[in-house]
């Protein structure tokens, strides 16, 4: 497995993921910097992504849509806040309506860094929900239905 560690911080709604790849930093950076490569990993296989705009400069945007098996399109966008090729990228990650207007779905801010490590590349990715209110809306919308746990299950919930 490529994922080396995962940390979930409930207070700051932050996921920190560390992954190790058997490839040089420049090559891993290409997965982000080349839109044709980005398309091949961003969306799940059943919802392939098509990247339209791809401008990795501060203030620039990436826009894309993912196509469902039924042919529906789900649009998303990034707003680039910082970029330092081939080492780091920071962006706000959100969804959009059909016409490309940012939707009121929760946004997250992703901070991605690449380091040379053990002859390969270590990728550290931090993803933070930008607001607790939005995150809770998402949870209430039923995306997480079935995951609501009773107080009695609190132990299992907090120990792993």
């Amino acid at each position, binding site marked *: *497995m*490529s*994922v080396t560690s*995962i940390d*979930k*911080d*409930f*207070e*700051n*709604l932050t*996921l920190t*993921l560390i*992954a190790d*790849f*058997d*490839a040089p930093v420049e*090559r*891993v950076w290409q*997965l982000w910097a*080349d839109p*044709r*490569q980005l398309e*091949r*990993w*961003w969306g*799940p*296989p059943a919802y392939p992504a098509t990247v339209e705009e791809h401008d990795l400069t501060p203030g620039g945007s990436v826009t894309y849509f993912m196509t469902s098996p039924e042919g529906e399109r789900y649009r998303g966008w990034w707003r680039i806040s910082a970029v330092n090729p081939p080492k780091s990228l920071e962006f706000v990650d959100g969804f959009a309506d059909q016409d490309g207007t940012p939707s009121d779905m*929760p946004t*997250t801010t992703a901070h991605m860094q690449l380091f040379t490590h053990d002859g390969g590349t270590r*990728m550290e*990715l931090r*993803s933070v*929900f930008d607001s*607790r209110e939005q*995150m*809770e809306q*998402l*949870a*209430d919308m039923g*995306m*997480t239905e079935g*995951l*609501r*746990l*009773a*107080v009695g299950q*609190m*132990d299992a*919930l*907090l*120990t792993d």
Partner: protein
Amino acid sequence: MDQLFHALADATRRDILRRCGRGELSVSRLAEAYPMSFAAVQKHVAVLERAGLVSKERRGREQLVRTDPDAVSRARAALDELEATWRGRVDRMARLLALDSGQETDNPTRGPAR
């Protein structure tokens, strides 16, 4: 937030969430459970309260702390969702990188995977 405080305190605050999930507990009872001052425990509780994970109620001379299980499970579910998304992406990235070295000759008509 002070990052160092945050890093050192994570285990303590998870423990506070767990204890106060079984029923409300006073800050002084909590303070007995940890090798730290009442003020330090109060600070941890305040962080959890700001994050919306516990509520605090004053009853007489006691401050009672109670975990909000819904808030905790919502945060948990949202972070689990994010984790699943990124694990999938990392797996696909690793698979793409593996194509570089392995399978270029398997698809001569498509040229090397780039």
